[in-house]
């Protein structure tokens, strides 16, 4: 009983995610899988970002740079070097992690708005660079030959495979996110969020701790990039480094509740369903972006703690269940 109580937060989180993941497998419908793929991708990206944004308070506006760079490195290995998806994903994750480590050493010194601006600059610089980088195809990008999917049992199988790999990655992110939150390391991060200078006085090695949080939050997006563009069949600079996508991740984290494990899941689910609804709704489809903007504004102004944060504040009983 006490173990259940202790891990209640994790159990609830995993339970919510399991329901989401199992839905396409139960129905066996391809469209459910595609819809869930979009949602899970957002869940995994938002949860990764949350490790930095939610726990340390550092706003990475250009987080998509890891998704794009990882995607490019992995795609290159698959299309030009004929490597398998697995090795490519590993390489994508590693390259994103290395980039985050190097960047972290430099730009995590910047506080607040300055850090946010620097991450935007890095994403734009990276996109412009890839646009000029011939081995990666420059502006034309790269394409995968359709026969590649045969190694994974044909295109239909490859799409299901991508889905299950994504599901596995999402679980990994959440477990990492939970472990970080409940660890001493995570405590250090939260201390930095509250007051970085005080945290240092209390013995938190802020530069190191921040850098590792940054690296942790970058690896999975790098792997997801490879997976997404593998499924997509082609990669180009503009879709790989879309700044808007970065901002969407932040919105999802905010919606669900930053600094919580469950929040990004709910936020990503809510955001993507909302978008799917607005895009196909006859009334809103022309102004879907504006409607989403109004909703975001309402959330930011009136519910800054997000769904989970708000529930935790209002209903103390739920605190243990909603991590």
């Amino acid at each position, binding site marked *: 009983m006490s173990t259940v109580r202790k891990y209640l937060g994790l159990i609830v989180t995993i339970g919510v995610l399991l329901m989401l993941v199992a839905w396409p497998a139960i129905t066996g419908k391809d469209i459910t899988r595609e819809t869930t793929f979009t949602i899970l991708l957002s869940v995994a990206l938002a949860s990764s970002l949350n490790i930095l944004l939610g726990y340390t308070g550092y706003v990475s506006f250009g987080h998509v740079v890891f998704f794009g760079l990882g995607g490019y490195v992995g795609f290159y290995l698959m299309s030009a070097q004929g490597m398998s998806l697995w090795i490519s994903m590993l390489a994508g994750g590693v390259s994103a992690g290395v980039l985050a480590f190097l960047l972290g050493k430099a730009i995590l010194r910047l506080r607040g*708005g300055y850090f946010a601006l*620097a991450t935007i600059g*890095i994403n734009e610089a990276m996109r*412009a660079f890839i646009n000029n980088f011939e081995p990666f195809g420059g502006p034309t990008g790269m394409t995968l030959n359709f026969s590649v999917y045969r190694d994974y049992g044909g295109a239909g199988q490859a799409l299901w495979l991508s889905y299950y790999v994504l599901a596995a990655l999402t679980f990994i992110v959440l477990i990492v996110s939970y472990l970080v939150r409940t660890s001493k390391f995570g405590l250090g991060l939260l201390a930095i969020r509250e007051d970085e200078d005080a945290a240092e006085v209390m013995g938190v090695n802020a530069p190191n701790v921040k850098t590792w949080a940054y690296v942790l939050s970058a690896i999975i997006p790098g792997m997801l990039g490879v997976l997404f563009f593998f499924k997509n069949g082609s990669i180009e600079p503009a879709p790989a480094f879309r700044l808007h996508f970065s901002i969407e991740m932040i919105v999802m984290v905010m919606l669900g509740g930053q600094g919580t494990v469950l929040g990004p899941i709910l936020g990503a689910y809510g955001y993507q369903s909302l978008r799917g609804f607005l895009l196909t709704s006859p009334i809103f489809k022309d*102004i*879907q972006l504006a409607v989403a903007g109004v909703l*975001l504004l309402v959330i930011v102004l009136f519910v800054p703690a997000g769904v989970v944060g708000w529930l935790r504040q209002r209903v103390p009983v739920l605190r243990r269940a909603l991590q």
Partner: protein
Amino acid sequence: MQISFDLIIASLIDGLLLGFVYGIAAMGLTLIWGVMNVINLAHGPIIALGMFSLYFIFDLFGLNPYVALLLVAILGLLLGVLIYFVAVHRVIDAPHLSTLLATFSINMIIIGLGTAAFSASPRNVDFSLGSLSLGPVTLLGTRLVAAVLAVAVTGGLYLFLYRTRPGRYIRAVANNRDAAELMGVPSAQILALSFGLGTMLAAIAGGLIATFFPFTILAGGVYELKSFVIGVLGGLGNPVGALLGGLILGMLEGIIPAFMPTTWVPVLEFLLFVLILLVRPQGLFGARK
């Protein structure tokens, strides 16, 4: 490639003239940052609205674009005050993320409504002041006038900030809001006015750009990113630095292509941007704290 002297002179002058206008756009961003520590992510769409306002006033009423610019400025000011009270005021003391997202939601609203109303098709203000040829250099009338107006606007802003009571209040609030409030400065109104001035500058920059470049509702994004770079070059919060930063960026954009493919320009621009953030976050010209 052999680099000729003519090419460098022509590129340099082209870049400088544009730099003045970039400077005005960045000044709007940097003013808001300096006074209230808010990065206005609706900056780009407001520039685009400036372009569209000028276009419609010119097209529907046939007003001279430079007269229309005056109206654009007033609309920009009012819009900014409105945005401040709707989206920014409530979260002005919240963490950065809140103001970033609040202004970003305004960005989404403007782009969303704008696309529905104007579609993404390009517009063009059909207006020309001819051109002037001096040896290898061809100067366009509209760009010369834009540069002159940019200087005038900067001068006007400077006078306003240093010679008028609201201007002095703005500087006081920028320096120390709590102290200013204690001294009886109505800080909410002053913050709203500052935000309005920032969006007014963005709208003016948009209007000026519209006299020589075509645009769509999405066109502001490019200038927003340029404004970030310039703002950091000149020191965030430093209006005069923004003008100088604009000139530097304009010059770089003119000169770099003479030596290497133009597509490398953004790579260098953004690397420089990150570098300055790291090495001299107060900007090249060392602004006030």
